[in-house]
């Protein structure tokens, strides 16, 4: 069996060489983790729900700008799919790197909790933004706007567009997304309380996947011939829904609103598919989160109610109950102002 001998020997050599080559190429690219070993109190790691999402691209941009102003190291890593288990690996990695602070947009309120606890035990400060975990897992939650405010504004936008009555539906992101579910719940309450003639007939989930959201929109319109409006409180969803509507028979007949970025929606505002939608500025959200993270990491604040910190251009913020920091009210975009924004 000399051949087997030879074969195995060469296999060792080749595979080992391959491994070396791979790890060498890995070692070659350093993105902000070199420097002194051990704890790195002055670094901030952003972990969005997933990469390739324009919303988080904007918030990352804000975070990066803030880090530059503060003079700390900044990096962004994340999974390609927005699932909690893939996020955990990246949280763990940040723990290993002894990052000073983590800014996470949670894919699940509890699933990533243990990993965050592990990180905090290792001395890393944890800020959640956009989508929160349960309060005990993080130091501060930077909220884009308070949930009730968002829900109310969404309902008002749609009510105005459909004339206060008729069937509406919601196109959400993942079925487990904390913030989405909370908004939907609050929207329902708002509808019952103030708009009894509007009926929410169905909530569908596009998983922040473009094609899925697109197809779900088609499904909604078919299953509910009397549908008057759609609320899609997620940037991927609203864009996909707008694109579907824009060249369907429903264009202009079925109203659409929700949360979207101006760059995505500009076209549909201009062609009349969408009248208005809302969003806070995600760039500001990232910017504020980075400042909050830095304030925690440098020990300026502890995340208790009443703690105050400076957030660069945005001015001073106060930590509210449960460690929540609220960015502010969302901006409503329509034909009149959309060209003033670029994100």
């Amino acid at each position: 069996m000399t051949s087997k001998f030879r074969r195995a020997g060469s296999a060792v050599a080749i595979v080992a060489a391959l491994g070396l080559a791979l790890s060498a190429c890995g070692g070659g690219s350093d993105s902000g983790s070199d420097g002194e070993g051990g704890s790195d109190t002055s670094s901030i790691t952003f972990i969005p729900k997933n990469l390739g999402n324009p919303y988080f691209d904007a918030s990352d941009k804000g975070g990066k700008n803030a880090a530059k102003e503060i003079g700390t190291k900044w990096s962004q890593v994340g999974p390609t799919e927005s699932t909690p288990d893939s996020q955990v690996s990246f949280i763990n990695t940040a723990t290993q790197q002894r990052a000073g602070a983590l800014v996470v947009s949670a894919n699940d309120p509890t699933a990533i909790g243990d990993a965050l606890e592990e990180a905090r035990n290792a001395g890393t400060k944890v800020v959640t933004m956009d989508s929160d975990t349960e309060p005990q897992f993080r130091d501060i939650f930077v909220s884009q706007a308070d949930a009730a405010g968002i829900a109310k504004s969404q309902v008002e936008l749609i009510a105005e567009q459909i004339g206060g009555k008729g069937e509406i539906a919601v196109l959400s992101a993942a079925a487990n997304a904390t913030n989405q579910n909370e908004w939907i719940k609050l929207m329902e309450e708002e509808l019952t309380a103030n708009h009894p003639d509007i009926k929410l007939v169905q909530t569908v989930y596009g998983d922040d996947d473009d094609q899925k959201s697109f197809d779900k929109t088609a499904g909604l319109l078919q299953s509910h011939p009397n549908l008057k409006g759609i609320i899609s409180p997620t940037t991927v969803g609203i864009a996909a829904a707008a694109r579907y509507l824009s060249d369907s028979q429903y264009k202009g007949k079925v109203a659409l609103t929700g949360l979207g970025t101006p760059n995505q929606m500009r076209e549909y505002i201009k062609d009349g598919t969408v009248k208005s939608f809302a969003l806070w500025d995600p760039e500001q959200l990232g910017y504020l989160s980075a400042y909050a993270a830095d304030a925690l990491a440098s020990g300026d604040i502890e995340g208790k109610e009443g703690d105050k910190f400076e957030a660069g251009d945005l001015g001073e913020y106060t930590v509210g109950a449960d460690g929540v920091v609220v960015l502010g009210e969302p901006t409503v975009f329509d034909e009149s102002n959309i060209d003033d924004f670029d994100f």
Partner: protein
Amino acid sequence: MSLLAEKVEPRTYAAHAKPWWQRTLMTRDAAIIALLVVVWTYASIVILNFSDPITVYFLVLDITPILLIALPMTLIIITGEIDLSVASVVGLSSVLFGVLHREGVPMVAAMVLALLACAVAGAFNGVLVTRFGLPSLAVTIGTMALFRGIAVGALGTTAITDWPDAWGDVVQARIGDSQIPLMTVPLVVLIVIFAVVLHFTPFGRGIFAAGLSKDAARFSGVNVDRTKLILFTLSGLVSGLAGIYFTLRYGSARGDNATGLELQVVAAVLLGGVSIFGGRGAIPGVIAGVVLIGTIGSALRLDGLSANIIQIITGVLLIAAVIAASVLGWTGRIVGTYRRHHSSEEPSSKQSPERKRSE
């Protein structure tokens, strides 16, 4: 003594053609273990924070589900079949466990019931493959969608997240003050059990024989169908276990837990030297394959590289591993031919290309 009369002098045989160290070190398993050592050493030296003991802790927790499922998967692939439904069974287990828990079933009972259901799901694959004689690839692509669909359908939009902390803590506990997770203990026990069953029992001998030649195994008294049925059931059971682990570790029962895990498991098993044609493979190599993929991922993430590069490397490693065998086999054929045809009449010890249809 000789049965063939007349001659008296009995023949003697060396047990092996090569000394023990060659048989141990010059194998695919040894190669993959060596590669693991090289990568680990390299990463420890070059990559910041990799040598930190906490790396081991996270690594073990991360690879546990893959490792668990890789064990029965190894056995199944050695018999020449494949089970692509494992990750969906993980999801199914997670959801069942969650729903039962939500309905107030005690934790242990919920766990046992979920595991039983997963064993049944595995047996369902097994029955379709053995009784109906269907190709396992097609069957498990179907059940992959079916089981995942049931899991997602049963729980719909919700995730069940109200788990008693104590259970999650057990899953994530460390042994004493070390950075070695407590999970390592049952994991090692399972690995040992699978290794012994595969390599040191008559059942294991049957598994290899069935993979190399289904007919010859059957004609030698190996109950090939029953063996496969047992393995598929086992695969369901262990995947169910992985689902319980998943649920407790993340404190969240979701229908889409572990989506895509099946490909990672298959990649790790094949990387670990198991032949997709069946009949060859060993547990140590598979463990090394799983750990290797985990280590590369961990090291690259620490180095700030994205998940994308890790995907590319997994793919390249997988292809390189299978091609290395066949390319080297090709170059080694000239040498091999001598051995092979030394005493044989026909230049065709090549296997007749097996007809993969069961009629």
